[in-house]
């Protein structure tokens, strides 16, 4: 709990002063708010009824100096004006409180959102691998919202409730102690009732949310699967199923309304009883001459001021629990360590520097956190500008090799060097900026294709972009879209096929023109003919990038300067295309498919002759 308070307190840094000002404004606003009833009381008793003025001595002196009762009686508007003026003044402070509190709480929320966003970007991939996206989203959206509501509303509301009472009680006690006690008789029960009620019905709220969620989920599922519904002509069945969820939601909702009907009418009854007590007791007190009409008036006004809002406190109290849970959930993310927390950067080249592109792996071993061994004593050497092809069954460690080079995962044993410098000792952002990667399932941002491609190098000209797109064989496809390069990815009606996405990502990497280019099964969804075109274009750029290619198709791999075959995390074969063809092994087996195809075609064409 104290950890959570500290978390909140830290979040508030920079806004604490503004929060303090908001609290001060709130106190002033509440204090001034009680003055108009007191002026009304004085006007009624002192001016209209001709009784003595009950007020501190300095106020009496001031009134006497101002002109006394006769002047005020002749100019009763002064009392009215004072009432309006003070109400407006209280309102002004109320406004300032609202303004400052909202700026403070929204600043905090903004900072929290930005921090979360940045933190998520910097968390290691191993964290993202093991967490569920939906859960993260939930924490970033609704939990942050709960915290924001807590800061913007709940804290302020509870504070206001407290301040209002703190001001009202002494004023009432000063006017008439017996009446004051009577006026607060039911305050406790009302407060307790509302708190207990909302804590008790939390479940009902939750159940209704769940029923609504279930209904929405079913609706969503039905609409996305509408083809299946039609294909099996299950409309009737679906309507029945939805009808059940719909009715359940209605019943829960109505159940909540029924409970709320009890709450509002009971708490109303208690409030009205409290008001009634003041009314009748006041009447008797006036009759007995214990209080004046003005005092009675002031009591009625003040009771009205604090009585009705107090009922809301219960709901807020019940929601406070949610806020502490949310703070915990958000804090969990922020407590995770960023990928570079333990980095000891010894070499910090400027990001503008261009690496030569020599890559050396030496005795690299790697195991996942759960202990599964992925890479076993890998050593390899790629000269700048040369190309390395990696072949191997899935799960053999190909992608891990790439991920280590990109520092998406951290290696502990062995050494990886770029241009002779140890990777671990360099700024990882520098390393990444030297590498262009295209993944099998590339990620495109939901913005225009132009922006997506230019993410590689934002300063690039349109001509360069078109050139990169042409190398990636995607220019024509893009030009075919109605809005060309301005087509927004993922927007209605425009969906890129898997092959197109891969080619856009390739164009992005080509435009970046990095010293090292990595294609991780990057053309798997591109048809063979197009792939050959792309490879031809890339070959013309030979020598410009050190290239690492992972692929299944031999046609993609065979022209590499060196080919390695990975199996179970070990390099089992390496050499050029010609060398590998001479050795028995995976590579040769793949190559032999060609001849088995001829067999297949020969066999199938005979029987029908």
């Amino acid at each position, binding site marked *: 709990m104290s950890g959570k308070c500290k978390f909140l307190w830290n979040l508030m840094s920079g806004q604490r002063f503004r929060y303090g000002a908001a609290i001060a404004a709130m106190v002033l606003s509440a204090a001034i708010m009680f003055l108009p009833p007191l002026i009304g009381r004085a006007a009624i008793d002192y001016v209209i009824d001709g009784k003595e003025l009950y007020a501190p001595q300095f106020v009496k002196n001031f009134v006497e100096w101002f002109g006394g009762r006769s002047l005020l009686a002749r100019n009763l508007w002064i009392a009215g004006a004072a009432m309006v003026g003070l109400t407006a003044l209280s309102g002004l402070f109320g406004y300032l409180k609202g303004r400052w509190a909202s700026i403070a709480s929204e600043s905090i929320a903004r900072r929290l959102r930005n921090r979360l966003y940045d933190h998520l970007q910097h968390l290691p991939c191993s964290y993202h691998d093991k967490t569920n996206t939906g859960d*993260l989203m939930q924490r970033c959206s609704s939990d942050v919202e709960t915290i924001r509501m807590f800061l913007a509303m709940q804290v302020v509301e509870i504070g206001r409730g407290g301040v209002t009472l703190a001001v009202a009680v002494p004023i009432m006690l000063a006017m008439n102690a017996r009446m004051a006690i009577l006026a607060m008789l039911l305050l406790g029960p009302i407060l307790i009732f509302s708190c207990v009620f909302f804590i008790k019905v939390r479940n009902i709220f939750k159940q209704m949310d769940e029923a*609504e969620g279930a209904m929405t989920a079913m609706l969503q599922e039905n609409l996305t*699967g509408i083809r299946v519904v039609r294909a099996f*002509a299950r409309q009737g069945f679906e309507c029945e199923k939805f009808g059940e969820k719909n009715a359940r939601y209605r019943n829960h909702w109505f159940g909540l309304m029924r409970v709320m009907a009890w709450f509002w009418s009971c708490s109303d009854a208690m409030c009205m009883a409290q008001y009634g007590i003041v009314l009748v007791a006041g*009447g008797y007190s006036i009759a007995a*001459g214990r209080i004046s009409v003005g005092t009675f008036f002031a009591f009625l006004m003040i009771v009205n001021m604090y009585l009705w809002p107090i009922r809301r406190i219960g709901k807020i109290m019940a929601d406070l629990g949610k806020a502490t849970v949310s703070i915990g959930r958000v804090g969990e993310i922020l407590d995770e360590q960023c990928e570079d927390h333990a980095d000891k950067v010894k070499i910090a080249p400027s990001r503008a520097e261009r690496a030569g592109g020599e890559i050396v792996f030496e005795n690299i071993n790697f195991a996942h956190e759960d202990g599964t061994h992925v890479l076993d004593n890998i050593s390899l050497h790629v000269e700048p500008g040369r190309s390395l092809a990696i072949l191997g069954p899935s799960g053999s460690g190909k992608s891990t090799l790439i991920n280590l080079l990109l520092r998406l995962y951290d290696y502990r044993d062995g050494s990886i060097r770029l241009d002779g410098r140890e990777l671990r000792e360099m700024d990882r952002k520098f390393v990444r900026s030297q590498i262009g990667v295209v993944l099998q399932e*590339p990620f495109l941002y939901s913005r225009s294709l132009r922006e997506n491609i230019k993410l590689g190098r934002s300063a690039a000209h349109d001509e360069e972009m078109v050139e990169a797109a042409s190398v990636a064989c995607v220019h024509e496809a893009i030009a075919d879209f109605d809005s060309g390069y301005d087509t927004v990815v993922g927007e209605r009606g425009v969906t890129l096929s898997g092959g197109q996405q891969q080619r856009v990502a390739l164009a992005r990497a080509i435009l970046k023109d990095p010293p090292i280019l990595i294609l991780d099964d990057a053309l798997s969804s591109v048809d063979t003919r197009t792939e050959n075109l792309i490879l031809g274009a890339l070959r013309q750029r030979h020598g410009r990038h050190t290239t690492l290619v992972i692929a299944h198709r031999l046609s993609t791999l065979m022209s590499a300067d060196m080919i390695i075959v990975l199996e179970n995390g070990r390099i089992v074969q390496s050499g050029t295309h010609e060398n590998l063809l001479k050795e028995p092994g995976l590579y040769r087996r793949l190559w032999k498919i060609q001849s088995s195809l001829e067999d297949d075609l020969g066999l199938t064409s005979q029987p029908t002759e």
Partner: protein
Amino acid sequence: MTTEAVRPKEEEYSGQFNWSVWKKVFSFAGPYKRHLRRLVGVALIVAATDVVTPLVTRGVIDDAVQNRDEAQLWFWAIIYAILALISCVCFWTLIRLAGKVSTGVAHDIRRDGFRRLQELSFSYYDHRPVGWLVTRLTSDCDRLSRITAWGAVDLVWGGCTLIGVSTVMLFLDWKLALYVLAVIPPMVWLSIFFQKRLLATSRKVRKVNSTITAAYSESIMGVRTTKTLVREEENLHEFGGITHDMFGASVRNAILASMYFPLILSVCGFGGAMALWMGGVDVMAKLPTSMSIGTLILFISCARIFMFPIHELSRLFAEAQAVQAAAERVTGLLETEPEIKDSPEVRSAIETRNESGPQAGVAIDGQAEKIETVEFRKVSFAYKEGKDVLKDFNLTVKPGQTIAFVGPTGGGKTTIISLLCRFYEPTSGEILIDGVEYRRRSLHWLQSNLGIVLQTPHLFSGTIRENIRYGNLQANDGQVEWAGKIVNAHEFITEFEDGYDTEIGEGGTKLSMGQKQLVSFARAILADPQIFVMDEATSSVDTETERLIQNGLAKILAGRISFVIAHRLSTIRSADRILVIRDGRVIEEGTHSELIRLKGEYYELYTNQFTEQRQEEILAGKTQQ
């Protein structure tokens, strides 16, 4: 993908008051007329007690001041107690009634909307994202139902309280009443002014909020790409722009809200001050016609009583536009007629058949139950006018034949299948089932005789058993497992702890793509359809499993017409006829060996496919040579 981007513009209002829409809004409340009438009655009583209560306060004061010890305060106490009791009971009834009406209306609109959505053609869905449709049946419905019940309450209670209190004041002292009532116009104006703006700013907040959510989702999904592109700083900078907008919008909203109440309270205070001044002068004059001190206090506090009804009414007014827009969208949905439905002739045939009772071999539309042949005759189709996806397509399928479609994506293969399933109808040409144009047969009959397996299999949340049984709701557990065995899914299913009763999560997230395809395959087999349609049905299943499925499938397909889109060789090769489709036309047609000998497009596709498949097998370690 941002949710905002895919949503058609929905929050733009025409501003014009549209009477016919409002009539429809209240027609939704038709079944609850009785409740609504009682609701209005109760709201009237609540308004009455609100009007009378200040009079009791006045009575207490005047009685106590004038009669001192003879004051009959117990009388007022009883009156007050009765009023309070009535008020609480009425309030209780009011909430229950309004709850009944609003939840009921929401339920009914949703029910009707859902039913309509089950009938609407796919062309309707093509233009509307699922999220948009869901919003229609959730928040729009809630909004409409709220206004039918609570809007009526606010209107009656608010209006009557205002009128009642004003009347009492005018009756007691019309001159002073006019002074106090003068605060109503500025109050109404202020309320409407602020409510409208508050509504607009809170809508803006919601909008920016969904952008933030989308940005988070993008950043989490694309975290590797962001890292490899070293985009962290730029991304944060852009995200900072969005949170800045959020900050601006929320603060604007909060500031407006914190201006609103103080201003309204000040106006109220002004009314009270007028009463104190004018009334006070009158009381001080101590003439026989002067008002009592109790009346004075009543006037001072009356300005405050106006506040709540005016607040509620102006909120109602400000929301009216949003509600009208919601109503237009919802009624738009409810009134859309499905483009594809049974013709009047078919419907009357179904009725005649219903009267005569079921007969063996006769379908629900009175025609033959058995499907022998299918024929496409000069079929063309375009999703968008002028852009033909399929041109003059001809195909005759004889009993029991398997037809395979191959060709590049976007060539029109899936369109042929959609037309066959009558998800769409041809723009020209006709499709004949046993020589009868299929628009002259029952839609329900046709679709319940199809077994369709799609590439992206859609499963429903629930257990595996429930999902397979979706194909035939009457199937028993043995039949479900039989279907599971045929597609070779039985093995992986029984490996789960709960076997067939394993919950698969929303959309089947707990299963792999291949497993989902197998389950959806089993579902189609259980349906025992006359026509089998497979659209890349086993693309994510490994070759070994695929081979096993083929064996089981051969038995199932025997004697049935089937259509297959596939790139798996085994499926294609065994087909009776193979059509190569490109750009909406058939470019090659024949059996496997005929097409191989042609050495054209099919030959190329086949050889590529062969190589890839073998590579895959070798890499997976399945075939050791």
